[in-house]
């Protein structure tokens, strides 16, 4: 059974805060949910499906449903794949709606890493630290692994195998900064150059400070509805026409290859369901925890051949109005926002803005009728979950 077009994203909202000392994480979930529902023209009582991940405080879905006053929930999903969870949730919401389990699915994310709150579940909640309590903990968490150095390991091997350079990676940050200058809420609004990136201090070889995303408080929410509900609303209908997900890990240590991500599986699944190819995509939200994350995923999704990502992203090819693949026109996680160290929901939100024609005029892609949002959660260098959605303006 094809799920193509079985549901629509009708509400999308990004919390404008980037520093929230005076609010709880639960409160940011609520505020995001309320505004996303208002964006769709819906109310809390219309919600019958609720989706959240590890950033939801307390007993996950149970605590949040009660806290937010959701009275009509008949479908719960708290699948956790780190930062990509919310992209994966869009796919799960389509499945639930197509199966008749709900009609209005609410997805929320929020957290406050700048206040020492939020971060990863299961202990070890310091931002950027791998969590403990997992079966691999004794053999991995003791070595000082963080997002920086585990992604650094991927970049180091990608450079070794394919000749990728720091200057090529820097172009990804440069493109994001060109977009962020137009976003009044962006955490970093200054346009940077390749030289700025490669001359910024080394954090974990070969990743420099400006190869890394921002750390921000914040949140966001999405509303996915059935076609019937979508047609009753006075908003542009953003149809979910394809979704795919895939986990990837060290697999018992055999055939370890850190130069590709789970996008090699989630991408083709989503493209096959949608019946489109990478060449058809007008705008792409690509998870950008680090510059290397973007480069690997662009290759893995098929926007260019494996190993050619460095050449593909160079010379402004990701800048809206300049290059062939406008990406992360809100400034992405690299410049705009990476709420509670999870950038998945903002990837979908900016794709929805582009498809509605509501992106900033300076970065709006002309005739943007087909977009992709893709994310990687967890760590590219150890184990992660990849999720892809393909969206079409109806």
């Amino acid at each position, binding site marked *: 059974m094809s799920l193509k077009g079985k549901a629509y994203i009708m509400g999308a909202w990004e919390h404008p805060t980037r520093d929230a000392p005076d609010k709880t994480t639960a409160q940011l979930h609520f505020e995001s949910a309320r505004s996303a529902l208002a964006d769709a023209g819906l109310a809390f009582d219309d919600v019958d499906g609720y989706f959240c991940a590890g950033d939801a405080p307390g007993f996950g879905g149970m605590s949040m449903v009660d806290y937010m006053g959701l009275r009509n929930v008949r479908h719960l999903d708290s699948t956790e794949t780190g930062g990509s969870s919310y992209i994966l949730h869009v796919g799960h919401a389509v499945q639930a709606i197509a199966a008749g389990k709900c009609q209005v699915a609410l997805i929320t994310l929020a957290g406050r890493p700048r206040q020492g709150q939020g971060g990863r579940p299961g202990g070890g909640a310091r931002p950027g630290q791998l969590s403990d309590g997992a*079966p691999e903990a*004794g053999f*991995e968490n*003791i*070595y*000082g*692994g963080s997002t920086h150095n585990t992604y650094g390991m991927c970049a180091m091997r990608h450079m070794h195998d394919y000749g990728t350079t720091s200057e090529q990676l820097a172009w990804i940050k440069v493109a994001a900064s060109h977009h962020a200058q137009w976003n009044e809420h962006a955490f970093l609004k200054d346009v940077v150059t390749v030289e700025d990136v490669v001359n910024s201090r080394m*954090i974990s070889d070969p990743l420099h400070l400006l190869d890394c995303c921002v750390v921000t408080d914040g949140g966001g929410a999405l509303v996915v509805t059935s076609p019937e509900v979508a047609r009753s609303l006075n908003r542009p209908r953003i149809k979910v026409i394809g979704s795919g997900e895939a986990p990837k890990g060290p697999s018992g240590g055999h055939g*370890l290859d850190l130069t590709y991500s789970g996008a090699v599986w989630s991408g083709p699944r989503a493209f096959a369901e949608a019946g489109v190819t990478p060449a058809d995509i007008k705008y792409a939200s690509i998870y950008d925890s680090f510059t290397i994350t973007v480069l690997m995923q662009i290759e893995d999704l098929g926007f260019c051949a494996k190993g050619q990502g460095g050449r593909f992203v160079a010379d402004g090819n990701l800048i809206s109005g300049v290059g062939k693949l406008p990406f992360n026109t809100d400034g992405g996680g690299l410049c705009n926002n990476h709420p509670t160290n999870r950038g998945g929901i903002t990837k979908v939100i900016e794709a929805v803005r582009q498809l509605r024609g509501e992106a900033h005029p300076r970065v709006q892609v002309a005739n943007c009728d087909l977009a992709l949002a893709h994310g990687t959660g967890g760590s590219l260098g150890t184990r992660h979950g990849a999720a892809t959605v393909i969206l079409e303006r109806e």
Partner: protein
Amino acid sequence: MSEAEAKPAGRVIPAPAVTVESQPFWDAAAEGRFLIKRCTACGKAHWYPRAFCPFCASDDTVWEESPGEGEIYTFSIMRRSPTGPYVIGYVTLDEGPAVLTNFVDCDPDSLRIGQRVKVRFQPTEGGPPAPVFRPA
């Protein structure tokens, strides 16, 4: 802590979480022996050690002492550390599996992918010693 007991400068490895599945590994580590798990059903060695084989789901796994030799698959030098730079990376053991570890006893900037390394055990903070690798 007396001067004599002071740990060497650099990052101190925290005590590893020891479980019923991994206890024999850490007991051997305390004796300076490096164990890996091998499946007697399919013959493959795996890492990290489990009670079952992640390749064929057999329970027939045995501990095997390894010389702990292999080559660097990749690494990254973490510069943002209060105790000075340290190196995390994967070593591909000669038996096949890739192992996440720290590379030690070297100038981090001299490390290269493909370089031969060998295991040694490093004291941890109140736990059994942990396997780390140094240039062979």
